[in-house]
């Protein structure tokens, strides 16, 4: 029944009042104030996010800095410091970014195009993702105070996504800082436009951030790492607690409000602790054995295929996840389920085959005579050691001879750059937001994948801008991946974090924690 012209405005007014009242109630519910104590596993090497890919830097620094773009809940780029998505010229070679006006840095200075140009140029010379993008960039210049223009040498799909990814990110620094510290030199002044500002860094004690009162949130609702960011707490105190058992005890007693990177074995105990809510962090890493394809035994594709065919992945994952089925996932896609645009559902891939006959045949075809394969791992990350140890057992049952070399992390990351020192090493792969960012598919990362077909497809992916065509190319990459086996993909392992019940508003779907929009209800 259509509403009468008199009823309609009244109804509209009533609905409006209800919505406003609802917002007001929500505002009352979101208490302002308090100190949020977060326990993490250690000290960041720097807060210069251009400089390192270290996860801990990413987590902390993204509270201080923002880039032109961010990622929403579906891992899609959304504007952050840019007013909107860029205007792209018809030939696809010029990107014009309009900046939001009146955005302040923590030092009180207004952000302008000069800051953006200086920051992007520094990021492009140092960051892993920046370098990839800048290989295609011809020029970045300020058009006016609030407009920046980027010219690329050839059409590419990776401009906006590269500016949006949170790791080693294209954070905007004040021009004077971006120019003062050379790209290869760590910045030691940490001033951004983010919702928190740094007030104190006492190594091994705490990193103290406070609410940035001049922060101007976006109007769009919060989504993923972007949207509206409101800081409810007065202070965010990051406390490095290297011992995992201590972090668990501190969250149990309430000394910490939030604890990250917990031992998966603590899951049951935390579930039973009153006042504590364990959070399964998805995605975390997919486990991977990276083959040395530059020299040595694993240059043989047949041998790599044999490794892949031998693995029975589920028991390995279950064991690594402490026996908890909700802490791991069996998936063969190279992009996580959570990274919906790039998650593939291809059938019939030679993954988790558990096929001893095939393994033996491939070993014969590879001419393998039982030479020891140097498999390098570390106990500093328990999950790496666990899956290496279980793999060794399975592989030896199938006919391999594995020389498991357990070293510390610093040794592993040094040795993996030297092709003479290993055949396989363990690590984990995080979330790559664009197919061209999967480092293990290219020739510049340890393991040195240098496959003609993969290189060609990745080059086409970088140049193609149509999503459907890109996805089809990505599926081809996935099929070739499982044929050439540059690395052995195991399952997805999840992380464990925990919060006290009085910590409200935390977005549990994020891969890395963020504390804007979080409040304390004590």
């Amino acid at each position, binding site marked *: 029944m259509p509403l009468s012209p008199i009823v309609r405005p009244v109804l509209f007014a009533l609905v409006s009042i209800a919505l406003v009242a609802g917002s007001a109630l929500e505002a009352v519910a979101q208490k302002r104030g308090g100190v949020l104590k977060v326990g993490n596993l*250690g000290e960041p*090497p720097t807060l210069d996010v251009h400089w390192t890919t270290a996860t801990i830097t990413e987590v902390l620094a993204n509270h201080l800095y923002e880039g032109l773009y961010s990622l929403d809940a579906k891992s899609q780029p959304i504007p952050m410091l840019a007013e909107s998505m860029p205007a792209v010229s018809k030939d696809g070679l010029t990107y014009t970014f309009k900046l939001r006006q009146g955005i302040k840095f923590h030092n009180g200075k207004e952000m302008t195009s000069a800051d953006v140009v200086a920051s992007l140029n520094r990021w492009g010379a140092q960051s892993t993702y920046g370098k990839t993008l800048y290989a295609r960039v011809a020029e970045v210049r300020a058009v006016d105070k609030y407009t920046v223009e980027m010219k690329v040498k050839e059409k590419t799909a990776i401009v906006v996504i590269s500016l949006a990814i949170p790791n080693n990110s294209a954070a905007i620094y004040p021009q004077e800082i971006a120019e003062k510290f050379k790209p290869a030199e760590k910045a030691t002044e940490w001033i951004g436009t983010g919702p928190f500002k740094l007030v104190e860094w006492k190594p*091994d004690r705490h990193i103290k951030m406070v609410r940035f009162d001049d922060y101007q949130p976006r109007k769009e609702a919060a989504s993923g790492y972007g949207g509206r960011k409101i800081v409810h707490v007065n202070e965010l105190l990051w406390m490095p607690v290297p*011992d995992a058992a*201590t972090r668990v005890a501190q969250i149990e007693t309430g*000394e910490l409000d939030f604890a990250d990177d917990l031992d998966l074995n603590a899951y049951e105990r935390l579930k039973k602790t009153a006042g504590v809510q364990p959070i399964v962090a998805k995605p975390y890493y997919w486990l991977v054995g990276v083959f040395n394809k530059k020299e040595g035994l694993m240059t043989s594709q047949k041998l790599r295929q044999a490794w892949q065919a031998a693995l029975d992945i589920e028991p390995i994952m279950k064991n690594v996840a402490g026996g908890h089925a909700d802490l791991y996932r069996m998936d063969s896609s190279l992009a996580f389920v959570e990274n919906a645009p790039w998650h593939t559902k291809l059938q019939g891939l030679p993954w988790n085959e558990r096929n001893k006959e095939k393994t033996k045949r491939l070993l014969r075809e590879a001419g393998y005579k039982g030479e020891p394969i140097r498999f390098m791992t570390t106990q500093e990350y328990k999950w790496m050691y666990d899956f290496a140890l279980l793999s060794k057992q399975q592989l030896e049952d199938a006919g391999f001879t594995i020389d498991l070399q357990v070293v510390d992390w*610093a*040794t592993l*990351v040094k040795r993996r750059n030297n092709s003479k020192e290993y055949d396989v090493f363990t690590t984990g792969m995080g979330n790559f937001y664009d197919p061209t960012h999967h*480092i293990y598919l290219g020739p510049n990362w340890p393991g040195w994948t240098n496959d003609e077909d993969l290189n060609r497809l990745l080059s086409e992916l970088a140049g193609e801008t149509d999503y459907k065509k890109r996805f089809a190319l990505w599926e081809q990459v996935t099929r070739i991946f499982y044929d050439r086996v540059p690395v052995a993909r195991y399952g997805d392992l999840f992380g464990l974090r925990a919060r006290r019940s009085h910590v409200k508003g935390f977005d549990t779907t994020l891969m890395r924690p963020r504390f804007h929009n979080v409040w304390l209800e004590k």
Partner: protein
Amino acid sequence: MTTYLLRRLLALLPVMLVVVTIVFFLIHLIPGDPVAVILGPEANAQQIEDARRELGLDRPLHEQLVRFYARLLRGDLGRSYFLDRPVTQALWERTEPTLVLMAGGLFVAVLIGVPSGIVAGAYQGSWWDRGLMTLALLGVCVPGFWLSLNFIYLFSVRLGWLPVAGYASVFQDPVAAFRHMLLPAVSLGFSQSALIARIARSCMIEVLRQDYIRTARAKGLAERSVIYLHAFRNALVPVVTVIGITMAILIGGAVVTEIVFNIPGLGRLIISAILRRDYPVVQGVVLVTAAAYMLINLVVDVVYAFIDPRIRYV
């Protein structure tokens, strides 16, 4: 005495030089790369090489050693690769927690160790002796981390009496500092008290067998006077040596306690520095620890003269 002290102090210099040189080579010889750790898992070889050049790590080892000596002569221990601050500053920031922990641990160790050893020695073969020595044996055998974790579970998680971990400065909040330091000091002191107790016991037994003790007893002195006035002081010299060694151990060796209780001291600093291959920090901590060892030994030698008037230094 003054000449003796000066001679001992001067002797520190060559020893320190040898120590830092050995440590320099050891830390550089073990595999691992500070830059690869700092740059994170997704950094490629080119980025690592660029950063190595920036930090001077691409230079030959002998050149790095000469630079290290040159800086040392100027009193400069270098700059931490990871912490991005001078090593001297990093050391200074962590001295207070380590000294407080050392003092607390030592206090507990002496408080438990000396009386237990004296009583066990004085009443050799008694139930007191057996009970206390069994406890001392436990102290030696039980790993420090196990004891620490169980203390945390009982007193912090179950009973909620004390904080799990962390550190509060004695100068800013003495009550919080005491609450934070109680469990670490007890768990550290308990294991160290075992050694003190065993040494004190054997010294006491030896002294009590001396002729002058028999004479004192024959004179009709009360057993309490025999033990505390005559035997105790003479049994003290080796005990002071052990206390000195314990003190030195606690300066550089409270690593596990500092990590489990999350105390930002020198022990935790050196472990993280080794794991990150932060060479200047490792060298700095070793230098300070070595100096502390030698100075404590010197102080112990001087204390001997006060305890036993027969000891003279020229």
